[in-house]
């Protein structure tokens, strides 16, 4: 299962080892971990709650993962996203891409994160000393996702 939504933490090392186990065709593994920070928009953040849209979240992430595999020459993709209550320094998201060469693996990994940030139905609510507030979507995230359009040929 290339996509997992869970409340519990993940072990990136173990996940990477499992993804490339016994596959001698893998020459490059690119990974990204998103982490909960203790500040946002100038305010201290003491806690964060991640909500999602069960059902659609899995479908959206599977679609993004499958598009990445279609557009780049990579073999395996894994996305783990946590939901529920998180605090600063907690891991939020893990993306792992395994392929033959680093260029394709790096690009696919970045693409997955950019699309996840704009297309997967997750929402963050953060606790600050001024009270709880929903995190606003950033224009820079939309711009990052737009870099990948129109679709790049997978024949690179």
């Amino acid at each position, binding site marked *: 299962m290339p996509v997992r939504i869970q409340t519990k933490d993940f072990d990136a090392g173990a996940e990477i080892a499992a993804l490339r186990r016994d596959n001698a065709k893998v020459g490059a593994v690119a990974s990204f971990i998103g982490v909960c920070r203790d500040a946002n928009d100038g305010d201290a953040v003491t806690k964060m709650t991640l*909500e999602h849209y069960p059902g*659609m979240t899995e*479908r959206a992430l599977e679609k993004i993962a499958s598009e990445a595999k279609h557009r780049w020459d990579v073999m395996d993709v894994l996305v783990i996203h946590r939901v529920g209550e998180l605090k600063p320094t907690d891991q939020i998201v893990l993306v792992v891409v395994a392929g033959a060469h680093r260029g394709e693996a790096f690009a696919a990994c970045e693409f997955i994160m950019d699309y996840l940030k704009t297309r997967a*139905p997750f*929402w963050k609510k953060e606790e600050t000393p001024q009270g709880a507030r*929903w995190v*606003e*979507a950033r224009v820079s995230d939309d711009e990052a996702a737009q870099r990948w359009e129109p679709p790049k040929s997978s024949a690179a």
Partner: protein
Amino acid sequence: MKVKILYLASLREQLGKSGEDVEISPATSTVAGLRTLLMARGGAWQTALAQGKVLRVAVNQEMAQPTTRVNPGDEIAFFPPVTGG
């Protein structure tokens, strides 16, 4: 026809509701039409769903456009721009 509507994240809090089954006329056959119908309830509905508000809508768990058609039994979710990752 009957459709299932979901309100997520900040929108759920603004509307005080996580979802509802709504009976709509066949004339309200698009996402935009449904949004207009809900706005006509006034109050928080008018404010939260106003045209100036940037909202996303999914029909049957796929991202939709204002022109996307709505069919009997569909699940239509209204939510703010996403902020995961």
